[in-house]
């Protein structure tokens, strides 16, 4: 069984569109994250939620809006997509802030 699953795995879209990436974890973890990995392999945290409450909100354009309907889900909605948004986005979950389990990533390409 997949512990942390993201959908879709690949997303190609045009500039200006709105898209969502979904994430679900079945580990019973309280904390979920969204990371962005750029072309240089640097993995940067975007958001962190603990029990549906926003804990970390790094310097991310407000076009990115996370939504956590319950502690097993953390979705990422992106409005007005730009070329610079192209990257791989990783969802992760953890318990007690260690041992993060990552999803396999969503490669977003904005054309």
């Amino acid at each position, binding site marked *: 069984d997949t512990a942390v699953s993201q959908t879709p*795995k*690949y997303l190609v879209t045009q500039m200006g569109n709105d898209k969502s990436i979904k994430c679900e974890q079945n580990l019973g973890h309280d904390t979920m994250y969204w*990371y962005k*990995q750029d072309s*240089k*392999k*640097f*993995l*940067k*945290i975007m958001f*962190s939620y603990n029990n549906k409450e926003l804990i*970390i909100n790094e310097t991310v354009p407000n076009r990115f809006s996370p939504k956590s309907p319950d502690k097993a889900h953390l979705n990422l909605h992106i409005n007005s997509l730009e070329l610079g948004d192209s990257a*791989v986005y*990783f969802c992760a979950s953890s318990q007690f*802030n*260690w*041992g*993060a*389990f*990552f999803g*396999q*990533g969503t*490669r977003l*390409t904005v054309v």
Partner: protein
Amino acid sequence: EDKVVQSPLSLVVHEGDTVTLNCSYEVTNFRSLLWYKQEKKAPTFLFMLTSSGIEKKSGRLSSILDKKELFSILNITATQTGDSAIYLCAVEHPPGGSNYKLTFGKGTLLTVNP
């Protein structure tokens, strides 16, 4: 099934000790292996390895890849308390075309005591 296995899962040492962290993998279409250091927030990129037998160094950290035996090690010499973190290993193994796949290990929790 693609998998990345790190060992040990946790390790406690004293300052000044040398540690070796292990990462083995079984994937199709291997492209590269990445090491990250994860502290409170985002993992910090350490190394990217693509070729066997070529050691990469950054200060007290070094890493090497063995593509024949399908593993990598991360060495930390003269450890300091600031090295305490989770070390993540990840493998890039794109299935082909423009597809992308990155599989992470579960990490090694390193604790360095003064």
